[in-house]
């Protein structure tokens, strides 16, 4: 093309490898949030405020609190619950509202599919972004906990990978559900699911407070699995039970990923 500098045409365009494609999608999201950092921060602050208000404020009135048969500082009980909640916030906000906007209004994925990117690249890239945001939230949260002297075990470092698991589970399932939504009103359902999960997944009180049948219901929610996993890690008491949570969250994320890719195919490649 004589119109353009031949020296700049040296590299020939080509399809990206899976890992590269995901990195490009991450980079696109980072560019967006670099200019919208306030939006990024607010999702993080919510669980932090809950830690201050319930954990510390209400916690001051809680005496002789026991968890798993041992006396535990109530703040140290609530904090890991908020870690899991912030991991959920980190991924679910992007996986639902923002994903819907990109899909229906910004036509972002139509744009990407005009390039060598594939729907699988999009699904993987966006879920990785959900994970990254969860990871950043949880890392910051962990630092706050350290500063407040709420962490006494090296196991606590593992909440960061745990956050990535929670992020992928909520991200993948959130995106999968979002592909079925047709209007903004449908997102009331997301709020309706998030609020009770946040309040009742053994975040603020132990699951033993529930009658037997209700315990079963709570135990299969993904946030509960995230909460107990984080709690076992920050309290430094991991068990084989933690592995169940890990497998559960992995499965959640994997199923979500498959559904998201298929749904993107059927929505965009018509």
């Amino acid at each position: 093309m004589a119109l353009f500098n031949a020296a700049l045409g040296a590299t020939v365009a080509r399809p990206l490898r899976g890992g590269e494609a995901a990195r490009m999608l991450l980079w696109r999201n980072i560019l967006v949030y670099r200019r919208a950092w306030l939006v990024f921060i607010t999702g993080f602050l919510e669980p932090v405020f809950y830690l201050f208000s319930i954990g510390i404020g209400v916690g001051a009135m809680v005496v002789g609190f026991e968890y798993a048969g041992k006396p535990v500082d109530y703040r140290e009980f609530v904090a890991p619950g908020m870690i899991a909640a912030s991991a959920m916030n980190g991924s679910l906000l992007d996986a639902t509202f923002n994903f819907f906007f990109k899909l229906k209004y910004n036509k972002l994925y139509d744009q990407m599919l005009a390039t060598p990117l594939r729907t699988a690249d999009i699904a993987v890239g966006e879920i990785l972004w959900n994970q990254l945001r969860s990871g950043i939230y949880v890392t910051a949260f962990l630092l706050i906990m350290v500063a407040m002297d709420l962490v006494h075990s090296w196991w606590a470092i593992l909440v960061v990978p745990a956050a990535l698991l929670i992020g992928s589970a909520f991200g993948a399932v959130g995106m999968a559900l979002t592909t079925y939504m047709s209007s903004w009103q449908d997102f009331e359902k997301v709020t309706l699911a998030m609020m009770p999960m946040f309040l009742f997944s053994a975040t603020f009180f132990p699951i033993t407070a529930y009658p037997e049948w209700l315990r079963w219901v709570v135990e299969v929610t993904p946030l509960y699995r995230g909460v107990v996993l984080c709690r076992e890690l920050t309290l430094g008491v991991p068990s084989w039970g933690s592995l169940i949570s890990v497998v559960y969250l992995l499965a959640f994320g994997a199923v979500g990923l498959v559904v998201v890719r298929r749904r993107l195919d059927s929505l965009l490649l018509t």
Partner: protein
Amino acid sequence: MISAHGLRKSFGDFEAVRGIDVTVRPGVAFGFLGPNGAGKSSTMRMICCVSPPSEGELRVFGMDPAKDGPKIKARLGVCPQEDTLDVELNVYDNLFVYGRYFGLPRAEVKGRIEELLDFVQLTDKAKAKVDDLSGGMKRRLTIARSLINRPEILVLDEPTTGLDPQARHVIWDRLFRLKQAGVTLLLTTHYMDEAEQLCDELVVMDQGRIVAHGTPLGLIQEHSTREVAELRFGVGEHEALAAKVDDLAERIEVLPDRLLLYSDDGEAVIEAVHSRGLAPVATLVRRASLEDVFLHLTGRTLVD
């Protein structure tokens, strides 16, 4: 570059493309002319590998879109009907991120962006938000974006629909330069002037089928006379008056608001009309256009 045989696309019961055969050679500006709903966009989407054909054979660069979509797309430039610009990024980042999806190194993308912004006259808008751009600017940005991978084929779906005349001319000028530089252009349009200006070769589509194929001039010569005399009478009179003048031209078309008389000498037709004592409200003699070709082939106008 592109070949299609018996290509079909259906959505449920609706058949958007009903078996078309097309061959596009390198360096040609190839147009799909037709009204809305003719199946042009569906055809473009199949060529761009974002819509699997329902039936028939399609090859782009000799490859099958179903198998080699990403490889084909690496060599295609796509300018969709609806601007799919990323409204969450500024002008520069739109180009940068898009370029990176093609596996181009950072430095190379940066160099190309500078050049492309200059080409579409948006250099001073590099830091602007997409939403702050005018319709014409957005379209130019979309064109710049579609060129970032130095495509061998540039696909443009209704490139100037919705733009004002001045903005359209800027776009045409840029596309003309690309064509001269040897880029194969594939464009859909329902504007006959656009098709005449830009296309070396075109097909006329109607209701999912190709009804004519040739050069703009060739099609006009084949399906129309050299000139057209337009006569405008009072509302509702056209149908009745047609019988009184139809022997003056080779062919006559009755439209709700005017009569079209096809003849190689339009002025002579108008004189003859007047000499019969008829007094049209307005008359016009013009060269025949693709609009007339379409009218002749389908009995309908392009833009309703």
